[in-house]
């Protein structure tokens, strides 16, 4: 029982099947009271399905789910008083003002927060009298958060709160979500942006193809996949021809044809390489060793190699490695 008391969400072996497709294939998830957890994964990974099962908006095929100590399959109005939900791509009725919509929704709860206070919380006080159709994307999202907060919930779900936003709108939404922390609200948010998860959450749970593939802080996740660093330099400064064989083999995959010709080691190949590629990059985990070898090769070739740069693995690299999604082009 003491376990239940500090767990806002507890999910064991959750499954959801649509015909032949298993959208959620055995998810385990726990969120402590007061924690902000990001549920990270690519589109179609099962994030929204899972969250909507927790919100009692969808039924599940099997598994155990407890949200605030209640099985959502037996959700009551009393239970719904305690949760706040921001759906993906939330829209509002355009003919109402922000304040009117909040007031309208406050009637749904037993002891709602005052409208002015809610608008203040999400930074929409100035836009209180603005018709929602004239609000920006970021403002619309903050209004959706306001509606989730009006009932003074213990737990808030946010489904992809910034998808499709420009950087400024994203920043706005982040500020609002950061603000939830000071209210002591437990938050489960879904996102397919690693940097968003890193910025907003205490902990990141990664889902891919309906399964949890990692769970931890951003540095922990990075350590878990141990992604290599990128070492790069200007092609004009040092040709791969001058490199020892071992380093040539580390040349990045997309320079494959360059690598092949560099291995041939002809003068003609060298000139071609210089024309075609501006920078060369090596991918390695042995950063120190490789840099020493590179500098030795550079010295032998008589170049200072001032253009040398070492880039540690990015959050995106970690994310792509975790989710096994090599084709994702919409990160960041």
């Amino acid at each position, binding site marked *: 029982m003491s376990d239940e008391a500090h767990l806002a969400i507890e999910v064991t072996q959750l499954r959801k099947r649509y015909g032949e497709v298993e959208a959620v294939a055995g998810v385990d998830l726990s969120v402590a009271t007061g924690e902000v957890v990001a549920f990270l994964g690519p589109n179609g990974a099962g994030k929204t399905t899972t969250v909507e099962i927790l919100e009692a*908006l969808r039924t599940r095929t099997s598994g155990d789910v407890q949200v605030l100590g209640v099985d959502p399959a037996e959700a009551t*109005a009393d239970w719904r008083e305690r*949760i706040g939900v921001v*759906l993906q791509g939330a829209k509002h009725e355009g003919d109402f003002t922000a304040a009117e919509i909040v007031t*309208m929704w406050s009637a749904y709860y037993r002891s709602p927060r005052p409208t002015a206070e809610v608008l203040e919380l999400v930074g929409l006080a100035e836009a209180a009298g603005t018709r929602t159709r004239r609000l920006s994307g970021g403002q619309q999202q903050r209004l959706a958060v306001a509606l989730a907060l009006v009932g003074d919930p213990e737990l808030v779900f946010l489904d992809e709160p910034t998808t499709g936003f420009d950087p400024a709108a994203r920043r706005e939404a982040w500020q609002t979500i950061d603000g939830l922390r000071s209210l002591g609200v437990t938050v489960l948010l879904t996102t397919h942006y690693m940097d968003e998860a890193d910025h907003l959450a205490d902990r990141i749970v990664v889902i891919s193809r309906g399964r949890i593939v990692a769970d931890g802080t951003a540095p922990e996740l990075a350590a878990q996949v141990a992604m290599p660093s990128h070492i790069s330099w200007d092609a004009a400064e040092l040709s791969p021809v001058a490199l020892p064989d071992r380093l040539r083999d580390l040349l990045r995959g997309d320079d494959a044809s360059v690598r092949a010709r560099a291995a041939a080691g002809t003068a003609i190949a060298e000139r071609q390489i210089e024309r075609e590629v501006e920078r060369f990059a090596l991918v390695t985990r042995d950063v120190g060793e490789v840099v020493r070898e590179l500098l030795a090769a550079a010295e032998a070739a008589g170049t200072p190699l001032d253009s040398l740069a070492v880039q540690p693995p990015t959050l995106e690299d970690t994310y792509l490695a975790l989710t096994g999604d090599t084709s994702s082009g919409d990160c960041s």
Partner: protein
Amino acid sequence: MTRLGQLRSEARFNLLGFRRSPAATFFTVVLPIIFLVIFTSIFGNEIISSTGARVATVYVPGILALALVSANFMNAAIVTVIRRESGVLKAMRATPLPPWVYVGGQVAASLVLTVFMTALVIGIGWLGYSVEVQPGAVPSLLITLGVGAAAFSALGLAITCVCPSEQAAPAITNMCVLPLYFVSDVFIPSEGAPRWMTLIGDIFPIKHLAVALGRTFDPFSEGVPLPAWRWVILGAWGVFGVLVTLRFFRWTPRN
């Protein structure tokens, strides 16, 4: 908030949204009045020799039926589909608001509109075209309005089940009612129309609403008119609407 307070709040915001929507106010308030003026102008407001009543005695109840269908069926269906497709209904499902209070709020708003339009149409008919409500017919009028509003509200929710998108909603609802107006004593009396046309009118609910309302203004109806079987047919359509709604209504967007 108490359930009654929630109902009042929902109805209030529905009416506010209605007032702010130019399309809704035009089709539900302005257009019926324009029709009333146009029809009585075209056909004059003479005494019809066969019935002994004025032409407007036919049009006032017809236009009243049109306004009732517009407020309870068309307007409610279109608003509901817009809310469904924009995800507002889905978000509402995640709140403690009971579904019946949401539906009740919308029906209450439609009822207020119905009462408003009834007063407006009767007022214009009385002042402009000397069409009077027969005092003995007032109970019949109220019952017809109540049964009609309930039935068309239910059908309004039911029709949302076949509307795939918010763009489709106005087209589909109009497709349902526009042809029926012509065979349902709304635009033109169906007397003397081909058998198949009167049959279609008799099957669907609009004609029963229009004819039941017509009794209210008929200066020659005997005693207290109680068009009971018209109410039964309207009520049956209402029950059909409730059953379809219970079985097929969805809160989540189709797209």
